[in-house]
């Protein structure tokens, strides 16, 4: 699984079991982050589906994301659920902005296919 670099954002991919892990670093501040993230997420879900692995997104080292990035993450939540692939969002609750952003995303945590976990 390849990583992704788009602008100031770097996503490192680790696809060793027990999960496909995406480690987010830097800043997601592109005007249209979905143009790069959406096709990348499709690849990630395809790889995870083939290997029957959950996907873990690690945001602990991320400095900032804009609201357009949140939209892309919501679409990933929807797409992973549609494919019955478990998605885990890991964040640093000691960072107030991360706690607020990810606590709100718990509105989608209605079954075992989405887990939000504080590091």
């Amino acid at each position, binding site marked *: 699984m390849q990583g992704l670099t788009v602008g*100031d954002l770097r996503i490192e991919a680790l696809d060793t079991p027990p999960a496909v892990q995406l480690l987010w670093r830097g*800043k997601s*501040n592109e*005007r249209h982050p*979905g143009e790069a993230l*959406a096709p990348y997420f499709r690849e990630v879900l395809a790889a995870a589906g083939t290997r029957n692995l959950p996907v873990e997104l690690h945001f602990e080292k991320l400095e*900032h994301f*804009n*609201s*357009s990035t*949140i*939209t*892309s993450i*919501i*679409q990933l*939540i*929807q797409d992973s659920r549609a494919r019955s692939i478990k998605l885990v969002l890991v964040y640093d609750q000691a*960072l*107030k*902005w991360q706690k*607020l*952003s990810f606590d*709100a*995303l718990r*509105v*989608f945590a209605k079954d075992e296919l989405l887990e939000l976990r504080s590091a």
Partner: protein
Amino acid sequence: MGNFNFSIDLPVRSEWANVDLLRTSVQNCFTAIFSDIEGCHSLAMVTGELIENAIKYGDWTASDEQRFRLRVWGEGRSAHISVENPVRSTDTNAEEVMKTLGWMRSFPSAIEAYRAKLLEIAAADRDPGNSKLGLVRIAYEGNCLLSAALDRGVLRVQAELTV
């Protein structure tokens, strides 16, 4: 953050690279002054979201003056961030901003409005584009009161944060 008085007033070129330059400048500036790092991050996030909207939805067809106005000021325990940009008379964005602010006020709290907006985006088939999530995020995550005014072709969106 303690009491403070300050004012920044900038005419900024409407270029996407300036979003992060100004967002981080606001963050670095306030981090140098105040000890509340999280509060500084909130101010920076609010600044970034307002600037993004100005660049995305402003009318930049006039070739001579492609600038928006960013003002950041504080008095007592209130910080204000205001962004002004030209809008086309035929553009519905300013009206959508006003509608979004009214929609937000229909909720008992900013978190409830924010959750409703997240669900609305999820219900859309694909990227809804102009969802106004940034404005709702400012109210929730930035803990800001938002106001907007349209005057002679200029839209001003202002956020107020009590620190």
